[in-house]
């Protein structure tokens, strides 16, 4: 019974390229950013990497800025920094909300967005928002840099498109200023992970919703968009019937993939996905 990690080799590279080299050289190496997903697993000895490459001090991965309205968030930005950023509040309020709901204050102080997205915990909050917001992940690896849309980044349970040796360097999110957006969450009361988290991004023209993006997390092995719900909302004036229909569509879209556990069995999670879609629309329009 442990709360002490097994031994490992520790490296603290001073540049991004050095970090990538170290990770590329060793299949059993892991990148360590904030460590708030990795260290708990190591404490339980469920994770026993041979080597940790501490990227936590690389300045290349820090900072939040906007460029023509596009938010650019360095991978090492902490949840607390993001939640408190006026740029983020302006351009992607839902992300400020979601990062403010991760874990608890101590976790938010040190856990990083890059680490969180790379870990791709199905019950984590930020992936759902980055997906709904149409974010892009910028990656750098031994073969250079590339960009992957959030739609293509999350592959399965804890599984992403990150290749060996690759790191997330920053996350770009197109400005949602002028679009209605919100993230709402039903949290597991013990772990604080999302049982269901729903993010909606609604572009309105007067009373009409002209485009919608809907993503759900927590309920399924990965953050997942709901094309049918988006379709129901688009072109509607978000009247009760349309939102109810969207909720039902969302539930149908994810029906086969919903996970269950002791606290929230599958049928409950499925139903809550619909309920929280409605609440997300309400919150976005409030």
């Amino acid at each position, binding site marked *: 019974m442990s*709360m002490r990690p*097994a031994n490992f080799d520790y490296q603290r590279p001073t540049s991004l390229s050095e970090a990538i080299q170290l990770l590329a050289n060793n299949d059993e190496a892991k990148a360590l950013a904030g*460590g708030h997903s990795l260290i708990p697993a190591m404490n339980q000895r469920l994770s026993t990497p041979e080597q940790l490459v*501490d990227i936590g001090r690389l300045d290349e991965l820090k900072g939040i800025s906007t460029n023509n309205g596009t938010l650019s968030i360095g991978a090492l930005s902490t949840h607390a920094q993001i939640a408190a950023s006026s740029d983020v509040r302006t351009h992607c309020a839902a992300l400020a909300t979601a990062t403010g709901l991760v874990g608890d204050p101590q976790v938010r*102080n*040190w856990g990083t967005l890059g680490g969180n997205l790379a870990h791709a915990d199905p019950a984590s909050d930020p992936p759902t928002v980055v997906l709904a917001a149409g974010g892009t992940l910028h990656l750098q690896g031994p073969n250079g840099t590339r960009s992957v849309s959030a739609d293509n980044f999350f592959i399965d349970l804890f599984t992403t498109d990150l290749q060996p040796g690759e790191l997330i360097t920053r996350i770009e999110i197109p400005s949602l200023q002028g679009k209605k957006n919100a993230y709402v969450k039903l949290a597991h009361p013990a772990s604080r992970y999302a049982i269901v988290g729903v993010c909606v991004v609604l572009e309105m023209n007067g009373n009409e919703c002209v485009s919608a993006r809907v993503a759900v997390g927590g309920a399924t092995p990965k953050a997942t968009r709901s094309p049918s719900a988006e379709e129901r909302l688009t072109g509607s004036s978000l009247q009760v019937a349309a939102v109810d229909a969207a909720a039902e569509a969302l539930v149908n879209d994810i029906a086969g993939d919903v996970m269950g556990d002791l606290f929230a069995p599958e049928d409950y999670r499925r139903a809550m996905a619909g309920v929280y879609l409605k609440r997300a629309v309400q919150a976005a329009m409030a």
Partner: protein
Amino acid sequence: MNVSITINGTVYERDIEPRMLLVHFIREELGLTGTNIGCDTSQCGACTIHMDGRSLKSCTCLAVQADGREITTIEGLADGDNLHPMQEAFWDNHGLQCGYCTPGMIMASTAFLKDNPHPTEEEIRHALEGNFCRCTGYQNIVKSIKAASEKMGG
């Protein structure tokens, strides 16, 4: 690996295994046992300290990650013989019983007040979501933090 960590104003240099958690560095290497351990999954908050001014669960950080940083533990909170207003408030308001969660509660709440010096009761309750107490039902902890915020806010 050699690390140099400033704790409560004193620089400590030690050669440690990279796997050593910061909480074990504080408790076992330095003998600062005011920081307690109440769980093994980063939930309970008993081990909360400040690193570079922000609250951190020291069980969720390797000591090597703290290399070169500034840390404050419960032992370093008071100014000499003068208790920190948060310590005073916990004492005045019966904000503790067995005391085991108390250092973590005090460290978490002092960090919280830096970000939000005039919190509502609801905000205080929310800010404690990373800290468990099994004795007080949180009632007097919330009261203590409120009292401290009023005292510190002047």
